[in-house]
């Protein structure tokens, strides 16, 4: 396949080509009723074409926007391509977003057609209907529970296809002409940024924006049409559009969708994908699962696991340092491959994986090393929504947990004032939709994108990211520190779910820690520690002691001024519905700082107890206040504090108004 020639085309043009040249090859697979169902490239094209005709019959025109809401489902992909066939724009949105968030994006994007996965999503859209003046048509994929819905604007996917075929018979060649009229620089997609700082912004990406980085990446990593990929990350994430649409259609490999979010682990194992992409959170969770299962295994198995894990990490360290691996370690490693590493990879579903990536946020070095040590070729990639996803990757022989690799061919990176990383690439977006002023703020006059990340370029030419440029802070004595770096160190502990670190303009560094309920729960079980609820568990002095030990371990590796001196165990998890983290699970540090301002003042005021009034949001968007008194503790010599009782803990949230 001639990649460069294919770059001057649009996604629908490439899709049509794929159907003509390799129509019978598998394009998409989804697991339905327990069986993997295949759609080949011909099916993909025909369904997209017929749906496009259905849209045309409903009055959808060039430049109109279509949103999909739901898990990864073939029909949602058909719908996005169908919109692009007609010169329209796909606007995937996060399916777990609460109503107000969703309303903002759909209204801002002026979406006229919504394709919803099921009743849950349809209900959500109907509840927002009055706030969406541009909405004309809602199409659903799964008809279950929707039989008796009587709304004039609601249609089933089948009905749209039927309508499309009828329209196609009356207007032969309609879609083909529309596709031919498309140009590679037309906007194909609005990707709404997760917005760690503000309201979501819609990055406009053209066909070329998506295809060029995809092509360069495929070449750098020698990806081919024989790849097998499982797409289970939200459709609204730019990485999904890049890999599961642009790269998928460009190379023509097979993309699979899991049965349900809960079955991802099993589906991975059944499929044995050859490539994978996941945010750090996924790898952290996977490692936690492995450790929990190892801890629960029989003593013999547990010892084997621990021994061979040490061997693997030792060998990996030697390799990273460029030293030869002594024969006895090499031999032990071979045994480990048969007894431990291979079986673990098999259980995790990565046995056939040639290469897997982590991106979106930094991954703790220890998590990273663990996966590499057991033979998973895990590499860091770096990118941004405004860059259509990707701009750097680590070459196979230069993998290193501290960098995000080399800038891809045809792209450039430079370090501007304040260590901010700037990138120039063909993937740079066409601007934020309806926000030209904000667009100007992120683009330099000579066409570079300000990523907002602080970083440097090392001797080898690798790009390394330290933190968000504006988050890098200084404690009172002038020592600079990167909060994210400390948080990642903390999060390597299997007991720490999330952590937020403060200290800019303060005398010392302090942390708010949210524990991982599954591992701390197991730990409590093993230590016969009785508890009633998550909140109760968080408030146990023993748990505070556990977290303190973890922080001490982490502190041992840090220079004294940036060590964490005080901490607090939060009695809830950070939640995207409460705006504390983004839908892609990045901490919104500024928001957290505001929300927990009283707690933070308490840290520095030296109080051993702080009152927390946190607003929490239920999944349906209702809000309530959580009032509780939390104990904060000193990391060193804080024994006295751990015994202080936690008073007035209100287990049941009381309504806000």
């Amino acid at each position, binding site marked *: 396949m001639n990649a460069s020639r294919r770059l001057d085309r649009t996604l629908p043009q490439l899709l049509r080509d794929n159907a003509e040249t390799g129509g019978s090859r598998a394009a998409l697979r989804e697991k*339905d009723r327990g069986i993997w169902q295949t759609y080949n490239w011909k099916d993909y094209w025909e369904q997209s074409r017929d749906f496009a005709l259905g849209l045309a019959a409903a009055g959808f025109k060039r430049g109109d926007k279509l949103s999909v809401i739901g898990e990864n489902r073939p029909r949602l992909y058909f719908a996005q391509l169908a919109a692009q066939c007609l010169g329209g724009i796909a606007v995937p949105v996060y399916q777990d977003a609460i109503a107000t968030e969703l309303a903002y994006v759909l209204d801002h994007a002026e979406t006229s057609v919504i394709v919803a996965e099921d009743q849950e999503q349809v209900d959500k859209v109907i509840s927002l209907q009055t706030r969406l003046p541009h909405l004309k048509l809602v199409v659903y994929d799964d008809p*279950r*529970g929707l039989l008796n819905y009587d709304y004039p604007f609601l249609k089933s996917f089948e009905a749209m296809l039927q309508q499309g075929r009828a329209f196609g018979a009356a207007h032969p060649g309609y879609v083909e002409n529309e596709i031919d009229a498309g140009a590679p620089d037309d906007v194909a997609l609005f990707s709404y940024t997760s917005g760690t700082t503000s309201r979501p912004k819609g990055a406009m990406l053209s066909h070329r924006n998506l295809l060029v980085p995809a092509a360069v990446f495929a070449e750098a990593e020698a990806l081919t049409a024989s790849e097998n990929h499982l797409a289970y990350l939200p459709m609204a994430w730019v990485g999904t559009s890049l890999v599961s649409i642009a790269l998928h259609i460009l190379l023509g490999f097979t993309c699979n969708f899991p049965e349900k979010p809960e079955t991802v682990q099993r589906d991975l194992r059944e499929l044995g994908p050859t490539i994978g992409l996941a945010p750090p959170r996924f790898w952290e969770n996977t490692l936690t699962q492995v450790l929990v299962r190892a801890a629960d295994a029989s003593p013999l198995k547990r010892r084997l696991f621990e021994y061979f894990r040490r061997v693997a990490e030792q060998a990996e360290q030697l390799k990273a340092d460029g030293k030869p691996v002594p024969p006895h370690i090499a031999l032990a490693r071979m045994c480990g491959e048969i007894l431990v590493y291979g079986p673990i990879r098999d259980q995790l579903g990565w046995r056939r994986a040639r290469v897997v990536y982590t991106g979106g946020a930094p991954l703790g070095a220890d998590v990273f090393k663990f996966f590499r040590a057991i033979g998973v070729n895990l590499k860091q990639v770096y990118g941004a929504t405004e860059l259509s996803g990707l701009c750097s990757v680590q070459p196979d022989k230069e993998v290193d947990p501290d960098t995000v690799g080399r800038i891809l061919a045809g792209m450039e990176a430079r370090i501007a004032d304040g260590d901010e990383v700037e990138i120039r690439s063909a993937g740079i977006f066409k601007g934020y939709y309806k926000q030209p002023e904000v667009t100007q703020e992120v683009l330099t006059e000579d066409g570079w994108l300000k990523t907002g990340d602080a970083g440097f370029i090392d001797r080898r030419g690798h790009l390394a990211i330290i933190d968000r440029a504006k988050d890098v802070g200084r404690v009172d004595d002038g020592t600079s520190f990167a909060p994210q770096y400390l948080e990642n160190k903390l999060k390597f502990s299997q007991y720490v779910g999330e952590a937020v670190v403060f200290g800019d303009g303060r005398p010392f560094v302090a942390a708010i820690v949210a524990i991982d309920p599954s591992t701390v729960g197991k730990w409590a079980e093993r230590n016969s520690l009785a508890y009633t609820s998550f909140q109760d568990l968080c408030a146990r002095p023993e748990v505070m002691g556990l977290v303190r030990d973890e922080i001490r371990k982490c502190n041992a590796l840090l220079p004294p001024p940036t060590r964490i001196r005080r901490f607090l165990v939060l009695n809830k998890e950070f939640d995207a519905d409460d705006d504390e983290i983004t839908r892609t699970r990045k901490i919104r540090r500024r928001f957290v700082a505001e929300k927990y301002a009283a707690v933070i003042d308490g840290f520095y005021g030296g109080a051993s107890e702080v009152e927390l009034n946190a607003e929490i949001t239920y999944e349906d968007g209702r809000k309530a206040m959580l009032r509780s008194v939390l104990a904060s503790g000193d990391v060193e010599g804080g024994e006295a504090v751990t015994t202080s009782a936690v008073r007035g803990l209100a287990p049941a949230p009381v309504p806000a108004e």
Partner: protein
Amino acid sequence: MAFGATQSATARGDSSGEIQLAVTGVSKRFGGVRAVEDVSIAVPRGSIAAIIGPNGAGKTSLLNMISGFYRPDTGSIIFDGRDITRARPPEIAGLGIARTFQNIALFGGMTVLDNIMLGRHVRMKSGVLSSFIYWGLAQREEVAHRARAEELIDFLELQDLRKQQTSALAYGLRKRVELARALALDPELLLLDEPMGGMNQEEKEDIARYIIDVNEQWGTTIILIEHDMAVVMDISDQVSVLDRGRKIAEGTPAEVQRNPDVVHAYLGAHHEPGERAA
């Protein structure tokens, strides 16, 4: 409750008014205890009927008589024009009446899938010999039944638990598996004994949604015993109230709520109808 918003009880189902199950004057005594006395209930095809009442009112005994676990001392039970008063449980199951139990009755050592396949048993035709050889007919049959089981797994969103042992599942999930097994019978009439007992609000809403979906999608008639009044009032077409073995009221949820006898049975004292909180 969330599901009340888009759906009213009257807009649902295909209740044609034709009576599918007619229970007439049934009584049941255990020694000196009159568990059920002269109770009559008529359930139209495709409707959702609720039976409510205080503890010991005879609700479960009535359900046990319909499903053939008890034989009524007097009275008759007619299902689809057939007299099933004296029929045994397997015959009744064969006619298309399925049930779930108040205290979950699953096979703990078997997987979710196996428990559901077990529910298909009365619909299986091939005998021991042909099943043993597993060829042709038996194989095709197995595949068809498995397909139906998978439909139910999909319907009740049990995909990730397919191969899990049921004993290891949480209570709410086991209740859902039991519902799946009852549905595996392809029942015309589904008897649910406290399907939401011991559940939290979210789990209750889920189950209520499934019950409405079953009724809508397959037109299955449903009789349920339930204590949560909010749920009963939201999803049922008709409500019968039992107290100490007797039926004391019957009607639409709104009618029953206004009935002074019901208020008395529930609150134990005489209240003016207007005083009662919903």
